[in-house]
C-alpha cells in the first residue's frame, strides 16, 4: 500500500492504496466518482480522461500513486466552470451524446480543445478528437457542439 495525498475536485484527499491501482479505479471505486468511465484500459478510447493539474490525461494508464500531490478534476468537478457549462449546453442542443458513456471523457477533451485552440476549425477539431471514441453519434453532434462553442468564443 502507498499513501497518497491529492486534491480531487477541490477537496483534499488522503488515502492508502495498492501500488498497482490506477487513477481511474481510485476515482471510481474508492472515491465513488463514477462519471469517469473505463472504455479500454489501454489508453486509446479516451472515456477515462480527467484533468491532472489542469491538463487532460488518461486516468486508466496513470497510476494513482503517480497522482500523489496533484490536483485532479473529474467530470463531477466542473460545476462552476464556464467553458464546461457552454460545452454541456452545446452538447445538449446538438445531440452530441446518445448512450452517454464516452461523454464525460469527450467533454473534458472538448474543453481542452476550446481552451487551448481557440482558433481551431473543423478539421483540427476532428483531429484533436481522434483520441476519444464514440460508438453512437458518428461525431456529428460532438463536432458541431465544439465548433459552436469555439464560434461563441470568437464572436
Amino acid at each position, binding site marked *: 500500500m502507498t499513501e497518497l495525498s491529492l486534491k480531487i475536485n477541490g477537496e483534499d484527499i488522503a488515502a492508502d492504496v*495498492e501500488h*498497482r491501482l490506477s487513477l481511474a479505479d481510485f476515482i471510481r471505486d474508492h472515491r465513488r466518482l463514477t462519471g469517469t468511465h473505463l472504455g479500454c484500459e489501454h489508453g486509446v478510447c479516451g472515456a477515462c480522461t480527467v484533468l491532472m493539474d489542469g*491538463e*487532460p*490525461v*488518461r486516468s486508466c494508464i496513470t*497510476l494513482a500513486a503517480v497522482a500523489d500531490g496533484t490536483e485532479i478534476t473529474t467530470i463531477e468537478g466542473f460545476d462552476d466552470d464556464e467553458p464546461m457549462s457552454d460545452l454541456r449546453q452545446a452538447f445538449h442542443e446538438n445531440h452530441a451524446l446518445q448512450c452517454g458513456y464516452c461523454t464525460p471523457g469527450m467533454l473534458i477533451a472538448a474543453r*481542452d480543445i476550446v481552451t487551448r485552440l481557440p482558433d481551431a476549425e473543423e478539421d483540427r477539431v476532428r483531429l484533436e478528437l481522434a*483520441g476519444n471514441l464514440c460508438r453512437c453519434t458518428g461525431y456529428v453532434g460532438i463536432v458541431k457542439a465544439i465548433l459552436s462553442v469555439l464560434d461563441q468564443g470568437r464572436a
Partner: protein
Amino acid sequence: MKPAKFEHQRMTSVDDAVKALGEADKEIRVLGGGQSLGPMMNLRLAQPDVLLDLSRVDGLTDIEEDGNRLKIGSRVTHARIEDGEVPGTTGAYMQFVASGISYRSVRNRGTIGGSVAHSDPAADWPSALLALGGHVTAAGPEGLRTISLDGFTVGPFSTGLGFDEVLTGFELAVLGPGARWGYYKVNRKPGEFADAIGAITVGAEPRAVCGATESAPFRVPEIEQRLSAGADELSVVDARNILEEHDTGFDDYELQIHAVALSRAVKRAFE
C-alpha cells in the same frame, strides 16, 4: 484487465534509481510518463516487480540550446515539444513529430525519454531522432555517458542502455535556419502507431531514416547519398528499389508504404 502486483518506488535522484537498478534481483522498470508501459501492464504483457518513478527527480525536464547541441531532458513531455518549447528548425521538426504522437491527453504525460527507452518500433521518436542525429545521455554506476543515437535502438524494446542505466536526456543536432526536414507517417488513423515512417533531415549532412519496421529504424544511405548529390525528390519506384536492397523482411505492401513514406518525406522536405 488490471496490472499484476508491483511495487511503485518514488525516486528522488537519478543516482538512487541507478543504485536500485544495479541491486535489483527482480524485474525492475523505470517509469517515465507510463503511457507505453501503462497499457502493457494493464494487459499483463509487462509484469515488472518494481517500478522506479522518476517524476520527483529534478533536472530531467530542461530544454536548452548549447551551441550546436540541443539538450533535452528525458522527462520532457511530447506536449511541451508540441507546444513549441524546443527552439529553431529542430524545434519545428520535433514539434511536427510530437503533434502526431498518439493524442493530446497521452502527450501530456508521455515523455521523449520514455519513448526512446521503451523502444517500440512503431513509435515516432526512435525514427525521428535517428534522422536528426545526436546522442543519448545515460546515467550509470560510473556516472554519465553519452551514446550515439546511431545504433542506440537495437530492436523492439531493446536499446543500448545498460541494465543499470537511466536515460537522462538527449543532445541533439541543431538544424540551421535553412535546413530542410520531412517526416511522413503512414498509419490507419491519426494517433495510431505507425505502419511506416519516412524521416528526412537535410542539415549539415542529409539523414534519411526508414522507420516503423519489424526491428529498429535504419538509415538509408542510398537516399542520403542522393540527397547529398542535390536530389530534391524521390519516386516511390526508386524508393522501393532502394529498400529492396535492404534486409527488411517487408512484404509487398509493407515495402510499398515504406517507400511511399520515404518518397513523401523527401517531397515534404523540399516543398
